């Protein structure tokens, strides 16, 4: 009872102390926010392009020469026909227009006499950003041509089917969607990294930092079991980690809503109903990473050395995310029993719309808790060692 109270006292002090460490807070906030913001930026770029292609503006020079074409185009979804600029080529070269269609003088006459009617498509193929728009216009014109040729065949008593020896069905796997889905696989990784980074400052400052400041010795003169000090510091670090996980999750949720991913054909929504499962998946990992950080930082000879070790340890929460983009990690039962992997698989499950069963959650939480308990024992042992307390 008394030990529990002392643990809470230590925890409260560490939280208060770290909240005043402005510089550390900013660096945590930065690393928590940078991931989602980066994703948002990339996704927004992709979405913009996709929308550009969907809603296409078709400037036509000489609209009056092809009223039927203009009519047909205006009836297509997302197509907006406007009067083309006088100097079409110059407008495209100067990037004022993505594409311009020119209807030459002899268009109407040749069209009427069923000879190939010329149309000019002015485009700059070196520009990647307008390629979807140009393609869209090309496809539209081809569609129009196909429709006209069908009509002409019917008028001459020939089935349009005769003109189509092949029926090619295009199965659209849009590259934009693929890329978007790939970017989104990083969300679980960012959430896990947020958990790691969130606890890092307290875990190192309250162990390696405490000794370096010389405040560890007076602290240990207080009549409390060493376990109370270690557990208090660990608890504070875990809480900070969970807070930063919540922060990242909320950010990602806002992001997915803002980007309107469904427009891009991606089903990913992070709503209030996901927050519980996400926390259930990641909170045990926070217990574990905070315990690991505290143990390693206690072993380090100095605060600086501890920070160097943290730079290596952070690969832990990043590894599953990076690996999974190269080598798909399934959700086999054993994966839940690996401290860093389990939470990652759970997160991808939750975000992918599958709710993992209770056993999966329990397996992951159980391993994390067990590993944390062992690490806390080790750290408590280190806190009893005179070599550690007095810095060798």
């Amino acid at each position, binding site marked *: 009872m008394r030990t529990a109270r002392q643990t809470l006292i230590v925890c409260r002090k560490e939280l208060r102390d770290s909240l005043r460490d402005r510089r550390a807070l900013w660096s945590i906030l930065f690393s928590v926010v940078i991931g989602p913001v980066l994703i948002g930026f990339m996704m927004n770029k992709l979405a913009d392009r996709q929308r550009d292609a969907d809603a296409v503006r078709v400037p036509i020079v000489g609209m009056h020469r092809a009223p039927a074409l203009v009519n047909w185009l205006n009836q297509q979804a997302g197509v907006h026909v406007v009067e083309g600029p006088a100097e079409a080529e110059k407008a495209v070269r100067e990037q004022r227009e993505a594409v311009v269609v020119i209807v030459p003088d002899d268009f109407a006459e040749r069209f009427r006499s069923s000879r190939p009617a010329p149309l000019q498509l002015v485009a700059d193929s070196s520009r990647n950003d307008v390629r979807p728009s140009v393609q869209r216009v090309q496809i539209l014109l081809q569609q129009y041509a196909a429709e006209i040729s069908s009509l002409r065949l019917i008028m001459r008593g020939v089935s349009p089917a005769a003109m189509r020896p092949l029926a090619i069905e295009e199965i659209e796997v849009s590259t934009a969607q693929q890329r978007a889905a790939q970017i989104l696989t990083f969300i679980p990784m960012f959430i896990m990294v947020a958990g790691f980074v969130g606890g890092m400052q307290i875990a190192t400052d309250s162990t390696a930092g405490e000794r370096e400041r*010389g405040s560890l010795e007076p602290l240990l003169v207080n009549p409390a079991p060493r376990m109370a000090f270690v557990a208090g510091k660990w608890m504070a670090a875990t809480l900070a980690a969970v807070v930063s996980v919540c922060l990242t999750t909320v950010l990602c949720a806002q992001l997915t809503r803002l980007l309107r991913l469904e427009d891009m054909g991606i089903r990913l929504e992070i709503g209030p109903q996901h927050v519980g499962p996400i926390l259930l998946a990641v909170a045990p990992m926070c217990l574990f990473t905070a315990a690991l950080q505290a143990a390693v930082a206690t072993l380090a000879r100095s605060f600086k050395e501890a920070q160097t070790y943290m730079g290596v340890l952070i690969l832990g929460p990043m590894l599953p995310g990076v690996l999974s983009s190269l080598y798909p990690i399934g959700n086999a039962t054993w994966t839940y029993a690996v401290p860093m992997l389990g939470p990652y698989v759970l997160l991808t499950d939750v975000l992918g719309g599958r709710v993992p069963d209770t056993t999966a959650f329990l397996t992951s939480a159980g391993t994390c808790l067990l590993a944390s308990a062992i690490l806390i024992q080790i750290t408590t042992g280190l806190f009893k060692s005179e070599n550690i307390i007095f810095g060798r």
Partner: protein
Amino acid sequence: MIQIANARKQFGSVTAVDGVSFVAQDGAITGLLGPNGAGKTTTLRMLYAVMKPDSGEVRVDGVDAVATPQAAQARLGVLPDGFGLYPRLTAREHLDYFGALQGIESDQLAKRTEELIDLLDMRAIADRRTGGFSHGERTKVALARALVHDPQNVLLDEPTNGLDVMSTRAVRSIVRRLRDQGRCVLFSSHVMQEVSALCDSIVVIAAGRVVAQGTPDELRHQTGYQNLEDAFVALAGLDQGAHE
């Protein structure tokens, strides 16, 4: 009352404390005097139970500090070597933290904190963060923190080291006041004048051993020197190097 008997402590091949024994009585100021590296800090660390002696006995008010360190620590107020303050906490928060860890109820702790702020004349700095404090101000905070649970025994490791005259006087007057309240005060120093001005009893320690103990008068008598500093030099064996 603090008792230490035949305490030994070794670091690798170096014997830092080699069979130290003495008693610091209640209602008295006991000075632990010795040159740098004599084993003063190690001795104190064994007394406040953050170091275990390799052999020997340490008792605080009769409580075995080796077997039950926490019970002994509850009876001790300690100002360690180097104060170890938290730069982002205020002076008052330091007292809150340590008082709470000692198990003092919050209303009582608030009262005690006010008392100490007055006693140590730190009203002006009580709610400032200690990060920018002067050496004297930090000493006050560390001293207040050591006394927050009203301990019967007070251990001070070189408390006046590096202090200016006024701060030194303030610390001395507090040490005397603690003695007058019937407490056991043990403090270490390597400055003879400091010890002679303050102590009722002196323990001279050199190379990890107690070379003499007694009242200032007894020490003068023992060595035959009228000047305490000469007595100290003789006792600590510091003069031998000079002759060779």
